[in-house]
């Protein structure tokens, strides 16, 4: 006899498209962001194919520029930003705090529709001629020179921004107002802390990008001249406003991944986190200080040197909480019972790659180095280490970890391990050579490049093909698990947390009666302090 759960409680398309259940909305997001990930990945493959040879011989310059623009726009706004919050966060935030749903289920569904609408605008822009501004939409190129699809793409980003705002708003209200009795702030899973911090960035930063792209649209369509140098406008002001959001947006991508890693490291070491409050508060510190560092994107953009100094200093400060997290994760594994199951492989990969990504970020915050490597492949390599090596590793790890909970099925573990290895190796082969090419001086967004840099690009393209196989594999074994996977049971990992105490897949209401919380998550044994305190 099959028990009633959120998946079989209602059938048919309408029961999905009109659902207010946070778990079903999470799956709607999962399907749509996977589609966009595929699209963004397709553009990435075109880029890597073109760059196999120094001459621009596969695509025309115009097409190439549109391809990397769409790669950036799709991956940033339609995959990375919604990935962990909208899929894993949506599914887990209410469950982890002992609530039946998010505070505003209808707004949650609305956010998905808004996301899809924004996506349609962007796809329209891509299909009706493309946009060639780069995902950064720098003025005056985007207002004066580029083709008119900028409007459509900008509107797509504007609309999608509201989906992000609504998700963040929902999380904040839910975490404040919907916690089960006894679920105090310091008993919250670290996943919740990181999602709370992420939501702060979403609601405080996203409106600024919305108004900024709106100003670009107004300048294009209505001939208002806010960034127009002829009217005394300053293109650098656009960059300030753009990065006021877009730098913190990096933390929208990485903070949830950090939350995932905190959960993974605890479960697969069978140990509570080392230094809970430091890990929890470092998330908030990253969210807050992360708002004060945007000007490190403008060191060579004609920003005043003193502003550069301030931004450089603050950028070093924001590196510290990230370092604290990395050290605490490592320390958590000490004297643990470390399992080598696939989610943990992603977590270990994350720690290593994020360390490299973070430290190369510190190099870019160093003004004297940035003047040379700014806008080169060094930057490209750095942010892919954070976004792919960090955010996507975290997403993949989390997806594997909670897949049995979401679907009630176990996937094929050897296949998952293989994919994790392929992704790790493919990733490093793709992006490490780009550090070298960058320091050699290869500028980003170059369709053709000097021949002496070919060796690094060939390596990178070779790595990309391994990476592509690594990302394609889960599509098969995860789907396969839906039909043939063994039943997961409530807690396949021996993990400690509210989500593992309800059936897999969870019932629609999550909890029969509101749970009363008596202690924090991941308590595997009575605690004891380390010798020195």
């Amino acid at each position, binding site marked *: 006899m099959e028990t009633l759960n959120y998946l079989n409680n209602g059938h048919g398309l309408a029961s999905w498209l009109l659902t207010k259940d946070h778990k079903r909305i999470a799956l709607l997001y999962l399907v749509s962001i996977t589609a966009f990930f595929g699209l963004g990945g397709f553009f990435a493959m075109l880029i890597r194919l073109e760059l196999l040879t120094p001459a621009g011989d596969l695509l025309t310059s115009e097409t190439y520029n549109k391809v990397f623009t769409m790669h950036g726009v799709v991956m940033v706004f339609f995959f990375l930003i919604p990935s962990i919050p909208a899929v894993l966060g949506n599914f887990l935030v209410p469950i982890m705090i002992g609530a039946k749903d998010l505070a505003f289920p209808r707004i949650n569904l609305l956010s998905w529709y808004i996301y899809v609408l924004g996506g349609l605008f962007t796809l329209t822009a891509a299909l009706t001629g493309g946009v060639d501004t780069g995902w950064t939409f720098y003025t005056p190129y985007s207002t004066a020179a580029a083709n008119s699809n900028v409007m459509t793409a900008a509107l797509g980003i504007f609309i999608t921004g509201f989906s992000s705002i609504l998700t963040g708003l929902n999380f904040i209200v839910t975490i404040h107002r919907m916690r089960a009795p006894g679920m105090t702030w310091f008993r919250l899973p670290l996943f919740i802390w990181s999602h709370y911090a992420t939501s702060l960035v979403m609601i405080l930063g996203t409106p600024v990008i919305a108004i900024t792209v709106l100003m670009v649209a107004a300048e294009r369509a209505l001939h208002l001249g806010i960034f127009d140098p002829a009217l005394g406008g300053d293109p650098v002001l656009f960059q300030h406003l753009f990065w006021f959001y877009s730098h913190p947006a990096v933390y929208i991508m990485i903070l949830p991944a950090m939350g995932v890693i905190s959960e993974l490291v605890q479960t697969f070491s069978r140990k509570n986190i080392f230094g809970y409050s430091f890990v929890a508060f470092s998330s908030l510190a990253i969210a807050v200080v992360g708002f004060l560092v945007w000007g490190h994107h403008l060191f060579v953009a004609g920003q005043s040197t003193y502003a550069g100094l301030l931004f450089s200093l603050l950028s070093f400060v924001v590196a510290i909480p990230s370092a604290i997290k990395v050290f605490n994760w490592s320390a958590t*594994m000490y004297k643990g019972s*470390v399992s080598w199951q696939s989610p943990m492989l992603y977590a270990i990969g994350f720690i*290593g790659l994020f360390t490299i990504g973070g430290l190369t970020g510190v190099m870019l915050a160093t003004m004297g*180095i940035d003047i040379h490597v700014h806008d080169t492949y060094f930057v490209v390599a750095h942010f892919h280490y954070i976004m792919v090596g960090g955010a996507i590793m975290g997403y993949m790890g989390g997806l594997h970890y909670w897949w049995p909970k979401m679907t009630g099925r176990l996937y094929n573990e050897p296949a998952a391990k293989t994919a994790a290895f392929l992704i790790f190796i493919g990733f490093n082969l793709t992006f490490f050579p780009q550090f070298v090419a960058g320091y050699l001086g290869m500028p980003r967004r170059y369709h053709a490049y000097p021949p002496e840099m070919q*060796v690094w690009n060939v390596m990178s393209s070779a790595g990309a093909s391994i990476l592509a196989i690594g990302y394609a594999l889960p599509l098969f074994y995860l789907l396969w698990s839906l039909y043939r996977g063994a039943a997961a049971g409530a807690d396949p990992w021996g993990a400690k947390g509210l989500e593992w105490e309800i059936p897999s897949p969870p019932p629609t209401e999550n909890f029969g009666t509101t749970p009363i919380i008596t202690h924090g998550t991941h308590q595997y044994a009575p605690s004891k302090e380390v010798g020195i305190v």
Partner: protein
Amino acid sequence: MFKNLPFFPEAASAQAGQVDAVFFFLVAVTAFFSVLIAALVTIFAIKYKRKHDDEIGEPIHGSLVLELLWTVIPFAITMVMFGWGAKVFFDLTRPPIGATEIYIVGKQWMWKAQHMGGMREINELHIPVGQPIKLIMGSEDVIHSFYIPAFRVKSDVIPGRYNTMWFTATKAGTYHLFCAEYCGTKHSGMIGSIIAMEPAAFEAWMGGGKAEDSPVAAGAKLFQDLACITCHRTGAQGRGPILTNVFGHEVELQGGAKVIADEAYVRESILNPQAKVVNGFQPVMPTFQGLVTEEQLLQLIAYVRSLSQPGAAPAAEGTNSATPPQGKN
């Protein structure tokens, strides 16, 4: 195919060593911490690998001492990086007095250069080795970025204003010039060569240019052709301030504010004359927006500037150089 594997860029300027030194320091720190973390994680994963299904880890809640250690030590290291990096940045952005100046104009998709001696180049820049060079750069359309990897210098070139950069080449040779800020379809074609030459060879190369083509001479001609001379003169018709000995000096504006007359100010006064009117003059000057190109603007600035240099030629006929400079419009 890959006979020589390029691993590190050539260092051909006095600044390159400074940048590379900070870079090596950061690479060392990065390598140290990456290896440290990778080693810790790997060792823990192997040493504490789960032995049986019911095994649990030892419950350790944390250590304040360790937390403080790995907060304070990284912080101290980053402050060293900050200080060092900022010092290098200041050295890289402050041109020395007396640097040879060259005007650069970026446009989709080419670089134009004007030497003070009159030579003009496109997508090439000849410079002497051992002499500090200061580039004054403007853009005709969108944002570009002037980037010479071998010199480790880069600066965005922004429409509506002037950015400067400077360097001293140390090795003769031909180096890449890239546009580093995405500027449209042929962005990756907006490249060129920096040709650093021994001073003697450079002098010979410069000898090919004609003095009347110098920016100062061209600017003086424009000053006549655009009829600037009809107002910027002494006497009853002199409705605009006289421009001798103005550049580089402080100018008092209407309302009492003061500005230094630099490139940006002269540019603004030509394009948007009412923005900062000199005290004692009427705001009667028409705008020259759209009438002068970026290159002509630079020539006019070069001319106005030449009027402030020792032994400058009189501004124009009709100017009484004994008149105390009152500022300019």
